């Protein structure tokens, strides 16, 4: 079976600092992966490399069978590889519905139309509203993004990603800054996403990781330490060392 997303020997350095090295990753279609590791392990850097924010110095990236190593970030999104951000990166003065409609219009290739009024694209607006409803934001569509509660803004991050209809969704600490009781709700929403969608999420809360991930990737010092099902990862002494301070990491 073809992997949804894979990397071969991915590496990146900033000057003498190696932030990613020899990363071989294979994410099967429809799988739920957690990417864990201590601060500075290179988790966000890996997402940045895969989504084209930084060009890798070494290695190759594949989305399905297609190599995407040199594609622009927006082209990767159009091919189905989408991410969210650790810190809210939204459109403060657009309403939630406008923001998601924009993402829908971009996916449909109509965002460059300037001769027709937006309300005439009724199906795009309806689709955006459905995305908001699916993330329990249906009642907040008319509110400006900056006026939404923090947890709702985190959901809007995911809504923007889903509006692009991804095949692979990379979530960078989706529950960062969200109170513990709300973060479980947020992960319930993520858990309810389509089974066709491959999800990889970075998360520090191990209870959420072990509850929602089917497989876990552990990164340390810009390299993959191990990958496996939650029980195997939990039992691995190297992982225990990393989290209890027994390992040296960059």
């Amino acid at each position, binding site marked *: 079976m073809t992997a949804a997303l894979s990397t071969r020997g991915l590496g990146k350095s900033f000057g003498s600092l190696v932030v990613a090295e020899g990363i071989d990753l294979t994410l099967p279609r429809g799988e739920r992966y957690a990417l864990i590791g201590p601060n500075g392990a290179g988790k966000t850097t890996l997402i940045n490399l895969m*989504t*084209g924010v930084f060009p890798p110095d070494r290695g190759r990236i594949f989305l399905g069978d297609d190599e995407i190593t040199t594609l*622009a*970030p*927006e082209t990767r*999104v*159009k091919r189905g590889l*989408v*991410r969210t*951000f650790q810190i809210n*990166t*939204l*459109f*403060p*003065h*657009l309403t939630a519905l*406008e*923001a998601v*409609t*924009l*993402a829908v*219009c*971009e*996916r449909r290739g*109509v*965002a*460059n*139309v*300037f*001769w*027709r*009024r*937006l309300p005439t*694209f009724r199906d*795009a607006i309806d689709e955006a509203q459905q995305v908001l409803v699916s993330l329990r934001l249906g009642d907040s569509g008319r509110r400006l993004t900056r006026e939404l509660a923090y947890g709702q803004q985190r959901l809007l991050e995911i809504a*923007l*990603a889903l*509006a*692009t209809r991804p095949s692979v969704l990379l979530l960078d600490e989706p529950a960062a800054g969200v109170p513990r009781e709300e973060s479980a709700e947020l992960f319930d929403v993520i858990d309810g996403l389509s089974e066709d969608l491959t999800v990889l999420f970075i998360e520090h809360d191990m209870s959420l990781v072990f509850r929602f991930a089917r497989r876990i990737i552990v990164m340390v010092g810009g390299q993959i330490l191990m990958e496996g099902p939650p029980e195997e990862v939990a039992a691995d002494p190297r992982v225990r060392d990393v989290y209890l301070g027994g390992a040296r990491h960059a």
Partner: protein
Amino acid sequence: MLASQIAITALFALSLDLILGYAGIVSLGHAAFFGFGAYTAGILSKSGWGEPLTGLVLAAAAAGAVGYATSFVIARFRHLALIMITLGLGVLLHEAANQAHWLTGGADGLQGVRMWPLFGRLPFDLYGYTAYGYSLGVLFLLFLAVRRLTQSPLGLALRGIRENATRMPAIGAPSRAHIRKAYTMAAVIAGAAGALLAQTTETVALDVLSFQRSAELLVMLVLGGAGRLYGGLIGALVFMVARDRFSGINPQYWYFWIGALLVTVVLLLPNGLLGGLGRLLARRERAA
């Protein structure tokens, strides 16, 4: 003539509002397109083609071509770098026009522009009635076009770029392509405004390309309120009338009062006159 000057300036301000107010592209060299349009219309007329409407279209298209060519550079930069690049492009064109005396008349300006009657029937009269009607008509039509654009999916995409340019690629948006499109359209409109000035005054002075013209345009937009469509129109009206009145009161130091007006508006109404009006209406609505 003041009324037609206001209409032309309002059209010019509208073009800057499209890129600054909607897409967040700060330009200090927008007069480059205004001037290019003015010289194109003027040179066409001097070369024997004085028909106003086709001259206007050709001048706007020529300015748009320059806008499209420069948009590839503009779309790559933001913030201070962008301001410096637009300023540099404006200065480059100004000096090129100054050097090309044989074509533009240099510092003496382009003389000998003679326009044919509008629609073959309405000559540009001494009182400026035809000029006013013509300028107002073009302003009205292009205002409708810009309003449609701002209400379109591209208008929403431009607001997205203004709000968060770095997020746009993550939703699959080719931001640079959107910016190139908007910048070219703004150049077309600025070129049309410049052509109107050349055609209605039947002369083109070198200052159509000056930095001061670009800076004054920014002042107008700040006065009226950027990103509000009508802000450029209101700002142009307030600026032109204030300039007329202040220069009448004190011909030497009238700019002092323009400065005072600008500082007052920015301090009291940071989103311009229209922004202040909007806030006042919202407050009254809440109180009711």
